[in-house]
């Protein structure tokens, strides 16, 4: 049960935190079999609805469920409000940074961020230099990974500014909870998340290119049904009420994008693309890509179509740029960052590298461009030979790595085969940005590491999810 060194979201069993009072009582009173039977019901429901994801390199089960835990993660309104301010600030700065590095480059000339981190970054797209995007919005949809270590402090673990996924789980988990535990749900005033698709549509519409009609045509572009997040792509298209297209459904003529319909070509104005930059346009990027649309980049550069997110946003969510986020926020907004960064050693700096090599056993080392929990070393959990092998990798290419202390991620009670137990969680809220600024739907995706003691919450590594409740602060009696 709650180990002393970790902050538990619910608090101690006998003295739960105020926002968790009802959940704690429910957990204490619920019959032992109830949790298990609800968990099985949820699994059946998800399986039947086809809410699955594919794991690459896993031939056995090309469609797997992300385990869903029915104990909710609860956040108080005042905590949320503070978090929201920090998220909006951060995304604003990310957009200004992108506009700057693809524009005048002030921040680089001022020496705040080293130029080579931008220009020699694999995610930097020279094709975007000098290309204006509607209202200067590059990152329409951001997923910011947050971890909590104590009552007060939230840290940003990672910015996801390319094609962050998981929002369908935020919405479906809520549906599942309302169906499975209506009584518990009714006892709380949980902020609804179902407005997300409407907000997303409004934000995409507000950024339609010139020449788009009053009713601009939006589509969701997916790599196809074998992509790991295909379910989410189809889910979002459905909720938005727009076509889910693949590259082969689109073509470009005279620098305008069209989709192939049963009534002939139809112009497309906004593409919410879930295809990576590299695969978007075989004429501009990887020539072997069959997922993309030849000529799309030319249409984009001509300003005839809006891409969400913009091309080249990866340069801002890079783990090396991440370490400069406090400075970036200060540079553009003249404010201190409201959300903390996790202290990070940049292995490209010799002193840091030395420190990291000496303390590998205590640190988490990540590839600057890695994602999904692949290619990282979790020092305290690694065997001696793993650490030695990683040290060689690190020495060979230090620029490619950053290191962070192993964070004391907060825990949350979680239903396990052995009964209720504490498991580590993080949180990915989704920040939407349109012509009129940013907003955050109250909630997000809580990911939970299902293995005891594990800090890796990624779904590709066996993590699960929870519904995230933003509830009104309890009134002090």
């Amino acid at each position: 049960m709650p180990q002393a060194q970790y902050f538990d979201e619910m608090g101690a069993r006998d003295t739960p935190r105020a926002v968790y009072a009802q959940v704690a009582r429910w957990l204490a009173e619920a019959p032992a079999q109830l949790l298990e039977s609800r968990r099985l019901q949820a699994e059946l429901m998800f399986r039947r609805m086809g809410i699955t994801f594919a794991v690459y390199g896993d031939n056995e089960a090309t469609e797997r469920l992300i385990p869903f835990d029915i104990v909710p993660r609860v956040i108080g309104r005042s905590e949320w409000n503070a978090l929201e301010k920090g998220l909006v600030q951060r995304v604003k700065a990310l957009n200004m940074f992108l506009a700057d590095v693809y524009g005048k480059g002030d921040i680089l000339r001022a020496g705040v961020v080293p130029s080579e981190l931008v220009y020699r970054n694999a995610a930097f797209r020279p094709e975007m230099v000098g290309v204006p995007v509607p209202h200067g919005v590059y990152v329409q949809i951001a997923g910011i990974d947050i971890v909590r270590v104590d009552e007060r402090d939230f840290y940003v673990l990672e910015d996801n500014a390319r094609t962050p996924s998981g929002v369908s789980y935020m919405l479906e988990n809520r549906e599942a909870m309302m169906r499975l535990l209506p009584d518990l749900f009714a006892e709380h005033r949980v902020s609804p998340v179902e407005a997300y698709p409407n907000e997303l549509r409004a934000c995409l519409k507000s950024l339609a290119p010139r020449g788009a009609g009053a009713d601009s045509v939006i589509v969701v572009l997916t790599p196809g049904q074998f992509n790991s997040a295909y379910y989410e792509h189809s889910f979002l298209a459905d909720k938005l009420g727009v076509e889910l297209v693949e590259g082969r459904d689109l073509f470009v003529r005279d620098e305008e994008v069209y989709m192939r319909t049963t009534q002939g070509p139809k112009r497309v104005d906004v593409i919410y693309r879930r295809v990576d930059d590299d695969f978007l346009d075989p004429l501009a990027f990887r020539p072997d890509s069959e997922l993309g649309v030849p000529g799309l980049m030319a249409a984009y550069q001509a300003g005839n179509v809006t891409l969400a997110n913009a091309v080249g946003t990866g340069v801002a969510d890079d783990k090396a740029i991440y370490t400069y986020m406090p400075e970036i926020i200060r540079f553009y907004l003249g404010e201190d960052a409201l959300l903390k960064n996790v202290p990070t050693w940049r292995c490209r700096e010799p002193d840091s590298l030395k420190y990291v090599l000496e303390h590998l056993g205590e640190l988490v080392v990540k590839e600057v461009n890695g994602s999904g929990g692949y290619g990282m070393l979790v020092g305290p959990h690694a065997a001696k030979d793993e650490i030695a092998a990683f040290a060689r990798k690190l020495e060979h290419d230090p620029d490619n790595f950053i290191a962070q202390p192993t964070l004391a991620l907060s825990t949350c009670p979680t239903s396990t085969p052995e009964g209720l137990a504490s498991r580590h969680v993080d949180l990915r809220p989704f920040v939407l940005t349109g012509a009129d600024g940013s907003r955050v739907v109250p909630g997000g995706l809580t990911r939970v590491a299902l293995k005891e003691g594990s800090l890796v919450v990624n779904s590709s590594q066996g993590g699960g999810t929870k519904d995230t409740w933003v509830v009104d602060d309890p009134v002090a009696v």
Partner: protein
Amino acid sequence: MLARTADNLYWLARYMERADYVARIVNTTRRLAALPAARGPDREEWRSALSSTGALEAYTEARGAVTPAGAIDFLVFDPANPSSIVNCVDAGRANARAVRTALTAETWDTINSGWLELNRLRGARVDRTDSEALGQILDLAVKLSLDVDGCSYRTMLRNDAYWFGRLGLYIERADNTARLLDVKYNILLPETEVVGGTLDYFQWTAILRAVSALTAYNWVYHDSVKPWLIADLLVLRPEMPRSLISCYDNIQRFLDAIARAYGRRGASQRIARHVLTRLENTSINEVFSGGLHEFITAFVEDNDRLGAEIAEQYLIH
């Protein structure tokens, strides 16, 4: 709507209809094959089952001599047979998954649940000749097709997404009925030729059973089973939902709906109208005098041409 979406919906419906048809054929053939040899037909029944699902050639190439176990395996389980039941359900589900946004939640749930259940049965079945497990799979295929059809009918918006699905269903159904007739044309003889005995009687009722029309026959004709009336029922009776004329009545209706919505008619509307008019203006005696086989062959060709024309006009751009 996206041309690819229309294509997926069209094929989803075709695969579901085909799964149903193959399951019915296998069921009927098992029944026929279980007759005592003295009263039953010769051992050709599995050959004609393969033939009426268009799988005989592929079977012979892959397996050689036709055996009952081989035929059942090929028709139900073999991934190498594009029309096998498991292939139809797999392909139907893949098509549904590709366009799940165009389906209602109920329709998707039905297909996906059916597919999961089939996978379970497929996994559980050790002995491929286990007749109880086989029966479950055949029942599942028939029920799945009915459920998907019912869900679409009851829950889908009446727009082009619905119409393309219906087109797929009726084109496939017309093809199936025509093939069944063609395989049996040698025993479906006109009134003028008196033939047969008990042996043919079992064959005739098997045809009706394959398209679940035995009861319908009794209601329509109030007469003992006669081969020319079977042909009449399956070709020209508008009240029989699997008859060629009924299929084309529907095909024309849904093609017209699409043409109205899109404000444009094309070759597929013309072909459908032509085929329907011909069916409306003929009698079963005229069909027999020109030769049932010839009539069916021409029909299958027209039906194929219409399928190609629909693809050209709407599904490929």
